[in-house]
């Protein structure tokens, strides 16, 4: 148990739109600390829905989601917000960054929200910037740098406060293969060297090759893995 970061128990997510869609249909699984997992599956198989549930962005229709043994399905909106801030890092497909803030300010943002003191904050931000090779970009605004650079900055922001797990929904979907490869390489390195836990979703073969474990989804169900 100590080593399980995320645990899902019989999780169901039904969208009640024009048609009833069971986007996640009874999934139980766990994510181990220090692992590098990838959720794979065709479009509409429920990858995004599953990641949103893991990250406390969405609430399950039934079942439980435990993060470090806390059942987040029962949290209030504000408590969930604080929980995400402290325990989780997110990388989305694109437009991850706040456009009016510089790259440095964007990376600093979660630390500001957490109220870190100035010296500690500065050191953490500088370390990450150096580690991810963002020195030259740190004073620029997101829209003035490339998509690949933006995604690197998003990874920097996601890991800066040392969360328990980083959730990344198709982080390479909008990148060319070279940039995609280097972003996955970066995540892989952070996973190996610093033991940061990653859960990705993708349908890119190259990404899947890098993953430690792959969970295949279809119609909201795990058909292989986990």
């Amino acid at each position, binding site marked *: 148990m100590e080593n399980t970061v995320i645990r899902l128990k019989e999780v169901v997510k039904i969208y009640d739109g024009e048609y009833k869609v069971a986007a996640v249909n009874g999934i139980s699984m766990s994510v181990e600390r220090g692992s590098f997992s990838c959720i794979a599956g065709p479009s509409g198989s429920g990858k*995004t829905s599953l990641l*949103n549930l893991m*990250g406390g*962005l*969405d609430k399950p229709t039934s079942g439980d989601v435990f993060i470090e043994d806390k059942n987040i399905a029962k949290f209030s*909106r*504000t408590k969930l*917000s*604080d929980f*995400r*801030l*402290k325990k989780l*890092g*997110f990388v*989305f*497909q*694109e*437009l*991850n*960054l*706040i*456009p*009016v*803030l510089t790259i440095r*300010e964007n990376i600093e*943002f*979660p630390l*500001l*929200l957490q*109220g870190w003191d100035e010296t500690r904050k500065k050191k953490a931000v500088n370390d990450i910037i150096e580690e991810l090779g963002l020195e030259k970009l740190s004073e620029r605004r997101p829209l003035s740098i490339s998509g690949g650079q933006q995604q690197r900055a998003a990874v920097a*922001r*996601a890991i800066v406060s040392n969360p328990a797990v980083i959730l990344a929904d198709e982080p390479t979907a909008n990148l060319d293969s070279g940039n995609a490869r280097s972003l996955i390489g970066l995540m892989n390195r952070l996973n190996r060297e610093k033991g940061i836990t990653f859960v990705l979703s993708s349908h890119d073969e190259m990404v899947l090759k890098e993953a430690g474990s792959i969970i295949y989804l279809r119609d909201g169900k795990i058909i292989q893995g986990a």
Partner: protein
Amino acid sequence: MTDKTFILIAWRNVRRNGRRSFLAVLIASIGLTTLIISNSLYDGFHEKMIENAVRIYMGHIQIHEKGFHQNPTIDKRFEPSEEHLFNGIKTIRASSRRVKFQAMASTAASSQAVIAIGIEPEKEKEASILKGSVLSGDYLGTSEEESRDCLVGEYLFNNLRMEAGEKLVLVSQAVDGSLAADAFRVAGVCRTGNPDIDRSFVWIPLSSAQEMLGYGNSVSEIVLLLNRAADVEHTQKKIKQRVDAEKIEVLNWQEIAPDIVQLIALDIAMQRILMTVIAVIVAVAIMNVMMMSIQERFTEFGIMSAIGTRPGQIVMMVLWESFFLGILGVAGGLILSSAGLVFFYLHGVNLASFSAGVTKFIGLDTRVFPILKSQQVIISAFIVLASSTLISLFPALRAAHMDTVKAIRHI
């Protein structure tokens, strides 16, 4: 610390949408300018109206025998000791004694009921604009041979089909009930701008009036002109303490002319309505801008919320943004209204070009100049700022309570 970041984001967002922010700021500026200029012109108009009424005839304070103001009959008279009444009161600029009575004025051609005013020519000169209003001929003098001169209102002069230097006979009742009649030479014609006065007033020397009515040294009223309108209340109070309230009434201009007070109150009510309308326009304009701004930043708010920004912080951020727009609007409004005020200080607004009967209220110089009161400016600025910030609670709450998942799926 975090607040500083959200304020920074808010400020940068104002700058990011330069054109749209400019539009909102412009509307707020124009709104504030309208408020400040219309308020100061209204105030200028009111001051002028009061000043005019006071200076034409009424004075700031009038003293009579009790009941004279309600029912001015010739038996209501008093013999004042000005020394006793006014000694040591420094707020008094001028005082003048008058005898006021109804009379029948006849010329060779015609006759008409008039109001005759006995005045002290030298003192009246200080207390009212009478001397300045002499259109043709001469003002009243004090010498013996001038004691049978009179001044006549312009319309009255025309109505009686008089000619300059002609004789005018005034007939009235004396205090003892006998008939009093006296002939006066028309020395001058007056135009005060107030049609009621110009139509029916005849001014004669005080001593002649007293003689005619058998008044001895008594008078109908004393008129006081004070240094400042603000002095009225305490001056009136001081004088009241020196008279027998059973016998003498001491009235201020507001008591003498409540219609002016009501007119001003009506204007103030209209002005409040204008303020409300402008506040609503500014609020709607700013809300629109904020709504648009939030609409296109849907994803941005979604991401901020996903990574742990609290709804309250998002509300604050949006409110700061609209507050900045409001502040810029106030700044712009102050600059614009300064320019406008300079223009109006130099040129005034000629009310005669808007309304013909305006001389009745503000006299012959129909230009009105703005009067700037800091309190008005502060209130107007506050209204603009508050309405623009408070209305943005709607977009702010919308941004804060959006569905994070949907916002991210927008991508």
